[in-house]
């Protein structure tokens, strides 16, 4: 088999995973852009979205379960901001971050309580899990849909931010809370809108992500959440295009490492399995370290624009 045909499936799946990371990463980067807060609970909101889908799909048809899951996830994101972050608006940034860590553990423990720590099987979503053949490679339809859906959603978001009144308000608030207030912008509404958008994307991401995995446990949000966060930092935290590009780079590198054994064996470079796939998570963090050493603001990061 030639190189292209061996590598292609891994690239396809890498693009797909990258798209899913991107949907989570946008939530991190938007919240950071406006509040200068790393929302550690974001990955766990993603996990809760997955769990809700498990329970809803068991008791109602999918066409009802999916919208309800998205709606409740958005509501959860909104509520977390109002209850755990808004009261700390004038507190030091570190306090808000600790509050975010608290919310993260709270969600994990609630999930542990509800599921009893058992692996919950993610429902089979018929159309998107079907097998199809692309450029000679067989894959699930979700693999192909994900990057297109991600790019479409991100374009819609960038349009919203650059060409609508609420988007203009978001950019103003991200620069200067007080002056934005003097212009009549209600900063709390703008911040809520940011969380609503971020959690909406994470809910869509969870639908695509968990379709590829057999099940969910309470810590299922941690690794994808962490990788999406790395993607956001990699691309330059605060920058939406940066988060998306970072997520695709991380998704593709991770997938290629997973397939490295197979690729090298078919090429005759190595004779037997070397277990490179063990390093698929590690490579993400190596990428993070490399970018932080050589370009601390990330690929598209602003230069030090700390708020005064």
């Amino acid at each position, binding site marked *: 088999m030639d190189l292209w045909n061996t590598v292609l499936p891994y690239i396809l799946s890498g693009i797909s995973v990258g798209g899913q990371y991107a949907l989570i990463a946008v939530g991190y980067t938007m919240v950071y852009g406006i509040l200068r807060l790393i929302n550690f609970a974001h990955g766990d909101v993603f996990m809760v979205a997955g769990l809700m889908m498990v329970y809803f799909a068991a008791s109602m048809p999918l066409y009802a379960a999916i919208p309800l899951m998205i709606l409740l996830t958005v509501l959860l994101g909104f509520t977390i901001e109002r209850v755990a972050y808004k009261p700390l608006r004038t507190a030091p940034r570190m306090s808000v971050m600790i509050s975010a860590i608290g919310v993260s553990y709270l969600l994990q423990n609630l999930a542990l309580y509800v599921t009893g720590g058992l692996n919950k099987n993610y429902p089979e979503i018929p159309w998107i899990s079907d097998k199809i053949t692309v450029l000679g490679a067989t894959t699930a339809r979700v693999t192909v849909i994900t990057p297109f859906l991600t790019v479409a959603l991100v374009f819609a978001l960038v349009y919203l931010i650059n060409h609508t*009144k609420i988007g203009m*308000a978001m*950019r*103003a608030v991200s620069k*200067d809370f007080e*002056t*934005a207030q003097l*212009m*009549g912008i209600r900063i709390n509404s703008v911040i809520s809108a940011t969380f609503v958008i971020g959690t909406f994307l994470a809910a869509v991401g969870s639908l695509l992500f968990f379709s590829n995995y057999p099940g969910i446990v309470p810590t299922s949000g941690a690794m994808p959440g962490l990788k999406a966060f790395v993607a956001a930092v990699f691309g330059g935290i605060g920058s939406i295009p940066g988060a998306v590009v970072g997520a695709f780079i991380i998704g593709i590198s991770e997938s290629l490492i997973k397939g490295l054994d197979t690729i090298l064996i078919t090429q005759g470079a190595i004779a037997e399995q070397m277990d490179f796939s063990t390093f698929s998570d590690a490579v993400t963090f190596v990428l993070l370290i490399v970018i932080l050493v050589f370009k601390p603001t990330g690929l598209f990061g602003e230069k030090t624009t700390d708020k005064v």
Partner: protein
Amino acid sequence: MLKIENLQVAYGGIQALRGIDLEVPDGKIVTLIGANGAGKSTTLRTISGLVKAHAGSITYDGTELLGKPINAVLEAGIAQVPEGRRVFANLSVLENLRVGAYLRRDKAEIEKDLQWVYELFPRLQERSWQLAGTLSGGEQQMLAVGRGLMSRPKVLMMDEPSLGLAPLVVQGIFDIIREINRQGVTILLIEQNANMALKIADLAYVLETGRITMRGTGAELLADESVKEAYLGKKKK
């Protein structure tokens, strides 16, 4: 008329305003001069609703504004041009102006006011697509004033518009302030550049450590010996 009575403000135990009375009659330029830390900015910030007072009243045409949200003050027709310009550096010049009209719904009128601001500051029109952060200090001040005007205020409060600008640019800003006033906008101006401020002021107040210590017309204070010594840098003969 904007009327302030017995306004008292404290920051964590430190009394910033110790009961000040201030009147800003319609159509006038009123200036508030004083040294650093006298409470000038606090006065403006309290009127805007950014700072809470613990006693006193702020009324505009008889309506109480103290304790109202920031938006209510803006809707009553009182806008602020904050100290240090504070333009949104990541927004274009045009967007900065549009943010100034954020609360307004009257689209056609907003466009008219945009043209009005562009007539006052032709430079802003030339640069309307540029990011505000790339403007010079003087241009940023023009933009901050223009942004304030976009809410179509009855009273425009300006906090140190001459701060950090070259003398020639300062002259330009003061000319514009007079022009805006001539077109019917009441001005409440805070300045450390007392000389310039008193020259254009109809009415002036001197604020010292949270108290109003003197009031009069701009010309009166300009001629006053103690003002000369304390704020204009001229020694008594």
